[in-house]
Protein backbone atom coordinates (compact mmCIF):
# COMPACT_ATOMS: atom_id res chain seq x y z
CA UNK A 1 0.00 0.00 0.00
CA UNK A 2 1.40 3.36 -0.99
CA UNK A 3 0.14 6.84 -1.58
CA UNK A 4 1.69 9.67 -3.57
CA UNK A 5 0.73 13.33 -3.73
CA UNK A 6 0.88 15.05 -7.11
CA UNK A 7 0.09 18.50 -8.50
CA UNK A 8 -0.24 20.91 -5.57
CA UNK A 9 -2.26 18.52 -3.43
CA UNK A 10 0.37 18.12 -0.71
CA UNK A 11 1.01 21.86 -0.41
CA UNK A 12 -2.72 22.59 -0.32
CA UNK A 13 -3.30 19.99 2.39
CA UNK A 14 -0.52 21.35 4.59
CA UNK A 15 -1.69 24.93 4.02
CA UNK A 16 -5.21 23.98 5.13
CA UNK A 17 -3.87 22.25 8.24
CA UNK A 18 -1.67 25.22 9.22
CA UNK A 19 -4.38 27.78 8.48
CA UNK A 20 -6.93 25.91 10.59
CA UNK A 21 -4.59 25.53 13.60
CA UNK A 22 -5.30 25.32 16.54
CA UNK A 23 -8.46 23.58 15.32
CA UNK A 24 -8.49 20.35 13.35
CA UNK A 25 -8.97 20.68 9.61
CA UNK A 26 -10.54 18.02 7.40
CA UNK A 27 -11.14 17.31 3.75
CA UNK A 28 -11.25 14.77 0.95
CA UNK A 29 -8.51 13.44 -1.30
CA UNK A 30 -9.12 12.26 -4.84
CA UNK A 31 -7.13 10.92 -7.74
CA UNK A 32 -6.46 7.55 -9.34
CA UNK A 33 -5.55 4.07 -8.21
CA UNK A 34 -2.73 2.25 -9.93
CA UNK A 35 -2.64 -1.24 -8.48
CA UNK A 36 -1.62 -0.92 -4.84
CA UNK A 37 -0.57 2.71 -5.26
CA UNK A 38 -2.86 5.67 -4.91
CA UNK A 39 -2.07 8.92 -6.71
CA UNK A 40 -3.65 11.98 -5.09
CA UNK A 41 -4.12 14.79 -7.60
CA UNK A 42 -6.69 16.95 -5.84
CA UNK A 43 -7.90 17.75 -2.37
CA UNK A 44 -11.24 19.21 -1.32
CA UNK A 45 -11.11 21.02 2.04
CA UNK A 46 -14.41 21.00 3.93
CA UNK A 47 -15.63 22.74 7.06
CA UNK A 48 -15.09 20.95 10.34
CA UNK A 49 -18.75 20.59 11.35
CA UNK A 50 -18.04 19.33 14.86
CA UNK A 51 -19.99 21.29 17.45
CA UNK A 52 -17.80 21.89 20.46
CA UNK A 53 -14.12 21.09 20.74
CA UNK A 54 -12.68 21.41 17.22
CA UNK A 55 -9.17 21.41 18.68
CA UNK A 56 -9.37 17.65 19.08
CA UNK A 57 -12.37 16.53 17.03
CA UNK A 58 -13.52 16.78 13.43
CA UNK A 59 -16.74 15.89 11.66
CA UNK A 60 -17.78 16.07 8.02
CA UNK A 61 -21.47 16.78 7.53
CA UNK A 62 -23.50 14.29 5.46
CA UNK A 63 -24.26 17.03 2.92
CA UNK A 64 -20.55 17.78 2.49
CA UNK A 65 -19.96 14.06 2.04
CA UNK A 66 -22.56 13.83 -0.72
CA UNK A 67 -21.09 16.92 -2.42
CA UNK A 68 -17.63 15.35 -2.32
CA UNK A 69 -18.83 12.18 -4.04
CA UNK A 70 -20.44 14.36 -6.72
CA UNK A 71 -17.30 16.53 -7.02
CA UNK A 72 -15.15 13.44 -7.62
CA UNK A 73 -17.56 12.08 -10.21
CA UNK A 74 -17.82 15.43 -12.01
CA UNK A 75 -14.03 15.65 -12.23
CA UNK A 76 -13.60 12.02 -13.30
CA UNK A 77 -11.63 11.27 -10.14
CA UNK A 78 -11.80 8.50 -7.59
CA UNK A 79 -12.52 9.51 -4.00
CA UNK A 80 -9.58 7.90 -2.21
CA UNK A 81 -9.61 9.16 1.33
CA UNK A 82 -9.87 11.73 4.06
CA UNK A 83 -7.28 14.00 5.58
CA UNK A 84 -7.37 15.75 8.91
CA UNK A 85 -4.89 17.43 11.24
CA UNK A 86 -3.73 16.71 14.77
CA UNK A 87 -2.87 20.07 16.34
CA UNK A 88 0.06 19.73 18.77
CA UNK A 89 -0.19 15.97 18.54
CA UNK A 90 1.56 13.22 16.53
CA UNK A 91 0.21 12.02 13.16
CA UNK A 92 -0.91 8.73 14.68
CA UNK A 93 -4.60 7.79 14.64
CA UNK A 94 -6.46 7.84 17.93
CA UNK A 95 -8.97 5.25 19.05
CA UNK A 96 -11.64 7.78 18.13
CA UNK A 97 -10.20 7.88 14.60
CA UNK A 98 -10.19 4.08 14.38
CA UNK A 99 -13.73 3.51 15.63
CA UNK A 100 -15.17 5.97 13.11
CA UNK A 101 -12.97 4.88 10.19
CA UNK A 102 -14.45 3.53 6.98
CA UNK A 103 -13.02 0.69 4.91
CA UNK A 104 -11.11 1.39 1.70
CA UNK A 105 -10.36 5.07 2.39
CA UNK A 106 -6.86 6.30 3.12
CA UNK A 107 -6.75 8.39 6.29
CA UNK A 108 -3.99 10.98 6.08
CA UNK A 109 -3.09 12.77 9.32
CA UNK A 110 -0.97 15.91 9.39
CA UNK A 111 0.72 16.78 12.66
CA UNK A 112 0.85 20.54 13.25
CA UNK A 113 3.02 21.72 16.11
CA UNK A 114 2.67 25.33 17.31
CA UNK A 115 1.08 26.22 13.98
CA UNK A 116 3.75 24.71 11.73
CA UNK A 117 3.71 21.47 9.77
CA UNK A 118 5.66 18.74 11.57
CA UNK A 119 4.85 15.34 10.07
CA UNK A 120 2.38 13.43 7.93
CA UNK A 121 1.35 9.76 7.82
CA UNK A 122 -1.32 7.76 6.02
CA UNK A 123 -3.37 4.88 7.37
CA UNK A 124 -5.84 2.35 6.04
CA UNK A 125 -8.27 0.11 7.92
CA UNK A 126 -7.68 -3.62 7.49
CA UNK A 127 -10.31 -6.38 7.57
CA UNK A 128 -9.95 -6.59 11.37
CA UNK A 129 -10.87 -2.89 11.71
CA UNK A 130 -7.29 -1.97 12.67
CA UNK A 131 -5.23 0.76 11.05
CA UNK A 132 -2.17 -0.16 8.98
CA UNK A 133 0.25 2.51 7.86
CA UNK A 134 0.70 3.01 4.13
CA UNK A 135 3.86 4.45 2.66
CA UNK A 136 3.88 8.02 1.42
CA UNK A 137 6.21 7.89 -1.58
CA UNK A 138 7.03 11.58 -2.02
Amino acid at each position, binding site marked *: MAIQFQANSFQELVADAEKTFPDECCGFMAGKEDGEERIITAILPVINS*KEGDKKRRYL*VSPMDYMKAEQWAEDNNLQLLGIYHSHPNHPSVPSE*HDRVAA*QPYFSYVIASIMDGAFANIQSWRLNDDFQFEEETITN
Partner: protein
Amino acid sequence: MATILIPTPLRKFTNNSAKLQVQATTIKETVDELILNFPDLKKHLLDDQGNIRSFVNIFVGNDDIRDLQQENTAVKEETVISIIPAIAGGTF
Protein backbone atom coordinates in the same frame (compact mmCIF):
# COMPACT_ATOMS: atom_id res chain seq x y z
CA MET B 1 -37.83 0.19 -7.92
CA ALA B 2 -36.06 2.48 -5.47
CA THR B 3 -32.48 3.54 -6.13
CA ILE B 4 -29.66 3.22 -3.58
CA LEU B 5 -26.47 5.25 -3.92
CA ILE B 6 -23.48 3.32 -2.58
CA PRO B 7 -20.63 5.45 -1.18
CA THR B 8 -17.10 4.87 -2.46
CA PRO B 9 -15.80 3.01 0.66
CA LEU B 10 -18.50 0.34 0.38
CA ARG B 11 -18.31 -0.26 -3.36
CA LYS B 12 -15.72 -2.96 -3.00
CA PHE B 13 -18.49 -4.98 -1.34
CA THR B 14 -21.02 -4.34 -4.15
CA ASN B 15 -18.86 -5.41 -7.11
CA ASN B 16 -17.98 -1.74 -7.62
CA SER B 17 -21.60 -0.76 -8.20
CA ALA B 18 -22.27 2.86 -7.27
CA LYS B 19 -26.01 2.65 -7.84
CA LEU B 20 -28.36 -0.25 -7.16
CA GLN B 21 -32.09 -0.86 -7.56
CA VAL B 22 -34.14 -2.54 -4.86
CA GLN B 23 -37.71 -3.71 -4.52
CA ALA B 24 -38.59 -2.58 -1.01
CA THR B 25 -41.26 -0.63 0.86
CA THR B 26 -39.18 0.46 3.87
CA ILE B 27 -35.57 1.27 4.71
CA LYS B 28 -35.36 -1.94 6.75
CA GLU B 29 -36.39 -4.01 3.74
CA THR B 30 -33.90 -2.08 1.63
CA VAL B 31 -31.01 -2.82 4.00
CA ASP B 32 -32.08 -6.47 4.33
CA GLU B 33 -32.13 -6.90 0.56
CA LEU B 34 -28.76 -5.22 0.18
CA ILE B 35 -27.20 -7.55 2.74
CA LEU B 36 -28.88 -10.57 1.17
CA ASN B 37 -27.29 -9.71 -2.17
CA PHE B 38 -23.96 -8.52 -0.74
CA PRO B 39 -23.35 -10.33 2.59
CA ASP B 40 -19.96 -8.65 3.17
CA LEU B 41 -21.80 -5.35 3.62
CA LYS B 42 -23.41 -6.56 6.83
CA LYS B 43 -20.60 -5.75 9.28
CA HIS B 44 -20.24 -2.29 7.76
CA LEU B 45 -23.95 -1.44 7.93
CA LEU B 46 -25.20 -3.17 11.07
CA ASP B 47 -23.94 -3.38 14.65
CA ASP B 48 -23.88 -6.52 16.78
CA GLN B 49 -27.53 -5.98 17.72
CA GLY B 50 -28.58 -5.81 14.08
CA ASN B 51 -29.24 -2.07 14.16
CA ILE B 52 -27.84 0.38 11.63
CA ARG B 53 -24.37 1.38 12.84
CA SER B 54 -24.08 4.79 14.44
CA PHE B 55 -21.34 5.69 11.94
CA VAL B 56 -23.66 5.07 8.99
CA ASN B 57 -26.18 7.69 7.90
CA ILE B 58 -29.06 6.80 5.62
CA PHE B 59 -30.77 9.59 3.77
CA VAL B 60 -34.00 9.52 1.79
CA GLY B 61 -33.57 12.36 -0.64
CA ASN B 62 -32.07 15.11 1.53
CA ASP B 63 -33.56 13.83 4.80
CA ASP B 64 -31.83 11.73 7.44
CA ILE B 65 -34.04 8.75 8.36
CA ARG B 66 -33.32 9.63 12.03
CA ASP B 67 -35.56 12.66 11.40
CA LEU B 68 -38.21 10.53 9.69
CA GLN B 69 -39.42 7.10 10.82
CA GLN B 70 -35.96 5.56 11.23
CA GLU B 71 -35.83 2.07 9.65
CA ASN B 72 -39.60 2.15 9.12
CA THR B 73 -39.31 5.12 6.77
CA ALA B 74 -41.32 4.38 3.64
CA VAL B 75 -39.62 3.76 0.32
CA LYS B 76 -41.39 4.34 -2.97
CA GLU B 77 -40.56 3.52 -6.58
CA GLU B 78 -38.95 6.90 -7.20
CA THR B 79 -37.14 7.14 -3.83
CA VAL B 80 -33.41 7.78 -3.92
CA ILE B 81 -31.66 6.41 -0.84
CA SER B 82 -28.12 7.48 0.03
CA ILE B 83 -25.86 5.54 2.35
CA ILE B 84 -23.49 8.13 3.80
CA PRO B 85 -20.58 7.10 5.96
CA ALA B 86 -19.95 9.28 8.98
CA ILE B 87 -16.54 10.90 8.57
CA ALA B 88 -15.22 11.82 11.98
CA GLY B 89 -12.33 11.45 14.36
CA GLY B 90 -9.94 13.41 16.45
CA THR B 91 -6.69 13.69 18.30
CA PHE B 92 -7.42 11.74 21.49
